[in-house]
Protein backbone atom coordinates (compact mmCIF):
# COMPACT_ATOMS: atom_id res chain seq x y z
CA UNK A 1 0.00 0.00 0.00
CA UNK A 2 1.86 3.00 -1.14
CA UNK A 3 2.57 6.15 0.81
CA UNK A 4 2.05 9.15 -1.45
CA UNK A 5 2.98 12.48 0.11
CA UNK A 6 3.94 14.18 3.36
CA UNK A 7 3.29 17.82 4.30
CA UNK A 8 4.43 19.70 7.42
CA UNK A 9 2.85 23.09 8.15
CA UNK A 10 3.61 25.60 10.87
CA UNK A 11 1.06 27.68 12.75
CA UNK A 12 1.10 30.41 10.15
CA UNK A 13 0.28 27.98 7.35
CA UNK A 14 3.74 27.96 5.81
CA UNK A 15 4.50 24.57 4.30
CA UNK A 16 7.79 23.81 6.07
CA UNK A 17 8.35 20.56 4.28
CA UNK A 18 6.89 18.57 1.42
CA UNK A 19 8.00 15.32 -0.09
CA UNK A 20 6.45 12.55 -2.15
CA UNK A 21 7.12 8.90 -2.87
CA UNK A 22 6.16 8.44 -6.49
CA UNK A 23 2.69 10.00 -6.55
CA UNK A 24 0.63 8.95 -9.52
CA UNK A 25 -0.94 12.34 -10.19
CA UNK A 26 0.77 15.72 -10.50
CA UNK A 27 -0.02 18.40 -7.88
CA UNK A 28 -3.44 20.01 -8.10
CA UNK A 29 -3.50 22.51 -11.01
CA UNK A 30 0.17 21.60 -11.49
CA UNK A 31 0.89 24.17 -8.82
CA UNK A 32 2.43 22.78 -5.60
CA UNK A 33 1.85 26.03 -3.75
CA UNK A 34 -1.83 26.00 -4.62
CA UNK A 35 -2.09 22.43 -3.40
CA UNK A 36 -0.43 23.33 -0.09
CA UNK A 37 -2.86 26.20 0.43
CA UNK A 38 -5.82 23.95 -0.28
CA UNK A 39 -4.63 21.34 2.19
CA UNK A 40 -3.80 23.87 4.88
CA UNK A 41 -7.23 25.41 4.43
CA UNK A 42 -8.80 22.01 4.97
CA UNK A 43 -6.74 21.23 8.09
CA UNK A 44 -7.48 24.66 9.51
CA UNK A 45 -11.21 24.36 8.87
CA UNK A 46 -11.30 20.87 10.36
CA UNK A 47 -9.80 22.22 13.56
CA UNK A 48 -12.29 25.08 13.72
CA UNK A 49 -15.12 22.68 12.97
CA UNK A 50 -14.11 20.34 15.76
CA UNK A 51 -13.65 23.17 18.20
CA UNK A 52 -17.26 24.16 17.61
CA UNK A 53 -18.82 20.73 17.39
CA UNK A 54 -17.04 18.82 20.21
CA UNK A 55 -18.17 18.96 23.83
CA UNK A 56 -14.70 20.25 24.73
CA UNK A 57 -12.17 21.78 22.37
CA UNK A 58 -9.50 19.12 22.86
CA UNK A 59 -10.46 16.93 19.92
CA UNK A 60 -8.32 16.50 16.86
CA UNK A 61 -9.02 14.44 13.81
CA UNK A 62 -6.83 11.41 13.14
CA UNK A 63 -7.57 10.65 9.52
CA UNK A 64 -9.84 11.38 6.64
CA UNK A 65 -10.58 8.57 4.26
CA UNK A 66 -11.93 8.73 0.75
CA UNK A 67 -12.14 6.01 -1.87
CA UNK A 68 -8.93 7.31 -3.43
CA UNK A 69 -6.68 8.13 -0.49
CA UNK A 70 -6.38 8.36 3.27
CA UNK A 71 -5.10 11.54 4.90
CA UNK A 72 -3.45 10.87 8.26
CA UNK A 73 -3.08 13.81 10.58
CA UNK A 74 -1.11 14.76 13.67
CA UNK A 75 -1.08 18.26 15.18
CA UNK A 76 0.98 19.63 18.09
CA UNK A 77 0.01 22.20 20.71
CA UNK A 78 2.68 24.45 19.25
CA UNK A 79 0.68 24.58 16.03
CA UNK A 80 2.66 22.21 13.79
CA UNK A 81 0.54 20.09 11.49
CA UNK A 82 1.74 16.85 9.94
CA UNK A 83 -0.29 15.36 7.08
CA UNK A 84 0.48 12.10 5.33
CA UNK A 85 -1.40 10.80 2.29
CA UNK A 86 -1.51 7.05 1.75
CA UNK A 87 -3.54 4.41 -0.01
CA UNK A 88 -7.08 4.30 1.47
CA UNK A 89 -6.72 0.85 3.02
CA UNK A 90 -3.60 1.73 5.05
CA UNK A 91 -3.77 1.46 8.85
CA UNK A 92 -3.86 4.65 10.92
CA UNK A 93 -0.49 6.43 10.91
CA UNK A 94 -1.05 9.19 13.50
CA UNK A 95 1.40 7.50 15.82
CA UNK A 96 4.00 7.32 13.11
CA UNK A 97 3.55 11.05 12.56
CA UNK A 98 3.92 11.66 16.27
CA UNK A 99 7.14 9.66 16.19
CA UNK A 100 8.28 11.71 13.20
CA UNK A 101 7.69 14.85 15.24
CA UNK A 102 9.41 13.67 18.42
CA UNK A 103 12.32 11.77 16.92
CA UNK A 104 12.99 13.57 13.66
CA UNK A 105 11.55 17.09 13.68
CA UNK A 106 12.61 17.99 17.24
CA UNK A 107 16.26 16.86 17.01
CA UNK A 108 16.90 17.95 13.41
CA UNK A 109 14.86 21.15 13.25
CA UNK A 110 13.78 22.51 16.65
CA UNK A 111 17.18 21.86 18.24
CA UNK A 112 19.13 22.97 15.19
CA UNK A 113 20.38 26.53 15.70
CA UNK A 114 20.86 26.99 11.95
CA UNK A 115 17.16 26.59 11.20
CA UNK A 116 15.20 29.80 11.65
CA UNK A 117 11.62 29.73 12.83
CA UNK A 118 9.09 29.48 10.01
CA UNK A 119 11.73 28.64 7.41
CA UNK A 120 11.25 25.95 4.77
CA UNK A 121 13.33 22.93 5.80
CA UNK A 122 16.11 22.01 3.40
CA UNK A 123 18.41 20.34 5.91
CA UNK A 124 19.76 17.17 4.26
CA UNK A 125 20.01 15.21 7.49
CA UNK A 126 16.31 15.89 8.11
CA UNK A 127 15.31 14.97 4.57
CA UNK A 128 17.21 11.71 4.85
CA UNK A 129 15.86 10.88 8.31
CA UNK A 130 12.26 11.48 7.17
CA UNK A 131 12.76 9.28 4.15
CA UNK A 132 14.43 6.52 6.19
CA UNK A 133 11.66 6.55 8.75
CA UNK A 134 8.68 6.62 6.37
CA UNK A 135 10.14 3.97 4.05
CA UNK A 136 10.81 1.76 7.09
CA UNK A 137 7.14 1.81 8.15
CA UNK A 138 5.24 -1.43 7.63
CA UNK A 139 2.61 0.50 5.67
CA UNK A 140 5.22 1.46 3.08
CA UNK A 141 6.21 -2.11 2.33
CA UNK A 142 2.77 -3.68 2.24
Amino acid at each position, binding site marked *: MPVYTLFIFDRKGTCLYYTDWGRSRPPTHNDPEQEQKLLYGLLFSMKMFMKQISPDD*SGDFRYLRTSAFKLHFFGTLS*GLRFALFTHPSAANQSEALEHLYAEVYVPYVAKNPLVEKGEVITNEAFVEAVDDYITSLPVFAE
Partner: protein
Amino acid sequence: MSSKASLQRTGDSAFKRMDHVSSELFTLTYGSLVLQLIEDFEDYAEVNNQLERMGNNIGQRLIEEFLAKSRVSKCGDFAETCEVIALVGFRMFLGVTGTVSQSAKEPHVCHITLASNPLLDFVELPDEAKGVLQYSNILVGVLKGALEMVQMRVDVEVVHDPLVGDEATELKLTLLEIINDEPPPDDE
Protein backbone atom coordinates in the same frame (compact mmCIF):
# COMPACT_ATOMS: atom_id res chain seq x y z
CA MET B 1 -7.51 18.39 34.92
CA SER B 2 -4.55 16.16 35.68
CA SER B 3 -3.77 15.67 39.35
CA LYS B 4 -0.51 16.80 40.90
CA ALA B 5 0.61 13.24 41.46
CA SER B 6 0.14 12.30 37.82
CA LEU B 7 1.95 15.47 36.69
CA GLN B 8 4.79 14.56 39.00
CA ARG B 9 5.00 11.14 37.38
CA THR B 10 4.93 12.76 33.93
CA GLY B 11 7.74 15.04 35.06
CA ASP B 12 9.83 12.16 36.39
CA SER B 13 9.47 10.06 33.28
CA ALA B 14 10.21 13.03 31.01
CA PHE B 15 13.28 13.80 33.13
CA LYS B 16 14.54 10.25 32.51
CA ARG B 17 14.21 10.71 28.77
CA MET B 18 16.43 13.79 28.76
CA ASP B 19 20.16 13.99 28.15
CA HIS B 20 21.81 14.99 31.39
CA VAL B 21 24.82 17.17 32.17
CA SER B 22 26.52 17.80 35.47
CA SER B 23 24.63 20.52 37.30
CA GLU B 24 27.89 22.17 38.33
CA LEU B 25 28.98 22.44 34.72
CA PHE B 26 25.61 23.98 33.91
CA THR B 27 25.73 26.46 36.79
CA LEU B 28 29.27 27.53 35.97
CA THR B 29 28.53 27.89 32.25
CA TYR B 30 25.54 30.08 33.00
CA GLY B 31 27.60 32.09 35.46
CA SER B 32 30.33 32.76 32.93
CA LEU B 33 27.71 33.71 30.35
CA VAL B 34 26.23 36.31 32.69
CA LEU B 35 29.70 37.57 33.58
CA GLN B 36 30.63 37.91 29.92
CA LEU B 37 27.45 39.89 29.25
CA ILE B 38 28.27 42.21 32.14
CA GLU B 39 31.76 42.77 30.74
CA ASP B 40 30.41 43.38 27.25
CA PHE B 41 27.55 45.71 28.08
CA GLU B 42 28.74 47.26 31.35
CA ASP B 43 25.12 47.93 32.21
CA TYR B 44 23.05 45.62 34.41
CA ALA B 45 19.72 46.67 32.92
CA GLU B 46 20.98 45.82 29.44
CA VAL B 47 22.26 42.46 30.72
CA ASN B 48 18.75 41.74 31.98
CA ASN B 49 17.39 42.51 28.49
CA GLN B 50 19.96 40.33 26.79
CA LEU B 51 19.26 37.43 29.14
CA GLU B 52 15.56 37.73 28.47
CA ARG B 53 16.13 37.85 24.73
CA MET B 54 18.33 34.74 24.84
CA GLY B 55 15.77 33.01 27.00
CA ASN B 56 13.04 33.89 24.55
CA ASN B 57 14.91 32.25 21.69
CA ILE B 58 15.57 29.22 23.83
CA GLY B 59 11.93 29.01 24.90
CA GLN B 60 10.61 29.07 21.36
CA ARG B 61 12.59 25.93 20.54
CA LEU B 62 12.50 24.25 23.90
CA ILE B 63 8.71 24.05 23.79
CA GLU B 64 8.92 21.52 20.96
CA GLU B 65 11.20 19.24 22.93
CA PHE B 66 8.97 19.74 25.94
CA LEU B 67 5.83 18.73 24.04
CA ALA B 68 7.52 15.83 22.29
CA LYS B 69 9.05 14.30 25.42
CA SER B 70 6.43 15.08 28.05
CA ARG B 71 3.42 14.33 25.84
CA VAL B 72 1.22 16.51 27.99
CA SER B 73 -2.21 17.26 26.64
CA LYS B 74 -3.92 20.58 26.33
CA CYS B 75 -4.38 22.49 29.59
CA GLY B 76 -7.85 23.45 30.74
CA ASP B 77 -6.88 26.76 32.30
CA PHE B 78 -3.93 28.96 33.16
CA ALA B 79 -3.52 27.48 36.65
CA GLU B 80 -3.09 24.05 35.10
CA THR B 81 -0.53 25.45 32.67
CA CYS B 82 1.47 26.74 35.63
CA GLU B 83 1.27 23.38 37.40
CA VAL B 84 2.58 21.72 34.26
CA ILE B 85 5.44 24.23 34.05
CA ALA B 86 6.31 23.81 37.73
CA LEU B 87 6.06 20.03 37.92
CA VAL B 88 6.98 18.89 34.41
CA GLY B 89 8.83 21.74 32.69
CA PHE B 90 11.22 22.67 35.47
CA ARG B 91 11.73 18.99 36.28
CA MET B 92 12.65 18.15 32.69
CA PHE B 93 15.07 20.96 32.03
CA LEU B 94 16.46 21.93 35.43
CA GLY B 95 15.78 18.81 37.49
CA VAL B 96 13.83 20.69 40.14
CA THR B 97 10.13 21.20 40.77
CA GLY B 98 8.26 24.29 41.81
CA THR B 99 5.21 25.02 43.89
CA VAL B 100 2.35 26.97 42.40
CA SER B 101 0.27 29.44 44.36
CA GLN B 102 -2.62 31.41 43.08
CA SER B 103 -5.21 33.65 44.61
CA ALA B 104 -8.81 32.93 43.69
CA LYS B 105 -9.37 36.62 42.98
CA GLU B 106 -6.83 36.67 40.20
CA PRO B 107 -7.16 33.58 38.00
CA HIS B 108 -4.81 35.06 35.41
CA VAL B 109 -1.90 35.44 37.87
CA CYS B 110 0.19 32.55 39.19
CA HIS B 111 3.28 32.42 41.34
CA ILE B 112 5.82 29.63 40.95
CA THR B 113 8.24 29.16 43.82
CA LEU B 114 11.45 27.24 43.27
CA ALA B 115 12.86 26.09 46.59
CA SER B 116 16.10 25.29 44.82
CA ASN B 117 17.30 27.14 41.74
CA PRO B 118 20.29 25.45 40.09
CA LEU B 119 21.27 28.69 38.32
CA LEU B 120 22.19 30.24 41.66
CA ASP B 121 24.56 27.70 43.20
CA PHE B 122 27.91 29.32 44.13
CA VAL B 123 26.63 32.78 43.11
CA GLU B 124 27.10 35.93 45.15
CA LEU B 125 26.23 39.35 43.83
CA PRO B 126 28.41 42.38 44.50
CA ASP B 127 26.50 45.08 46.38
CA GLU B 128 26.18 47.42 43.40
CA ALA B 129 24.41 44.68 41.38
CA LYS B 130 21.82 43.87 44.04
CA GLY B 131 18.36 44.95 43.03
CA VAL B 132 19.53 45.88 39.51
CA LEU B 133 20.80 42.67 37.94
CA GLN B 134 18.10 40.02 37.57
CA TYR B 135 20.46 37.07 37.60
CA SER B 136 17.76 34.50 36.72
CA ASN B 137 16.24 36.64 33.98
CA ILE B 138 16.86 33.93 31.40
CA LEU B 139 13.97 32.00 32.98
CA VAL B 140 11.68 34.95 32.31
CA GLY B 141 12.58 34.81 28.63
CA VAL B 142 12.26 31.04 28.38
CA LEU B 143 8.80 31.03 29.92
CA LYS B 144 7.58 33.91 27.75
CA GLY B 145 9.01 32.40 24.57
CA ALA B 146 7.71 28.91 25.24
CA LEU B 147 4.22 30.02 26.24
CA GLU B 148 3.94 32.28 23.23
CA MET B 149 4.39 29.20 21.04
CA VAL B 150 1.36 27.61 22.68
CA GLN B 151 -0.66 30.75 22.13
CA MET B 152 -0.37 32.44 25.49
CA ARG B 153 1.07 35.88 25.83
CA VAL B 154 2.32 36.18 29.40
CA ASP B 155 4.29 38.58 31.47
CA VAL B 156 6.87 37.02 33.79
CA GLU B 157 8.71 38.67 36.64
CA VAL B 158 11.23 37.44 39.19
CA VAL B 159 9.61 38.72 42.38
CA HIS B 160 11.80 36.98 44.95
CA ASP B 161 15.45 36.20 44.54
CA PRO B 162 17.67 34.47 47.13
CA LEU B 163 20.62 36.52 45.84
CA VAL B 164 19.15 39.62 47.46
CA GLY B 165 18.22 37.81 50.65
CA ASP B 166 14.84 36.21 49.86
CA GLU B 167 14.19 32.64 50.84
CA ALA B 168 13.44 31.16 47.44
CA THR B 169 13.20 32.12 43.79
CA GLU B 170 9.66 33.17 43.00
CA LEU B 171 8.36 33.88 39.53
CA LYS B 172 5.14 35.75 38.88
CA LEU B 173 3.31 34.83 35.68
CA THR B 174 0.52 37.04 34.41
CA LEU B 175 -1.58 35.84 31.50
CA LEU B 176 -2.12 38.80 29.20
CA GLU B 177 -3.83 37.25 26.23
CA ILE B 178 -4.66 33.98 24.50
CA ILE B 179 -3.55 34.30 20.91
CA ASN B 180 -6.10 33.01 18.45
CA ASP B 181 -5.22 31.05 15.35
CA GLU B 182 -5.07 33.25 12.33
CA PRO B 183 -7.16 31.95 9.46
CA PRO B 184 -5.24 31.34 6.24
CA PRO B 185 -5.19 34.38 3.97
CA ASP B 186 -8.01 34.61 1.46
CA ASP B 187 -7.26 33.06 -1.85
CA GLU B 188 -8.08 34.98 -4.96
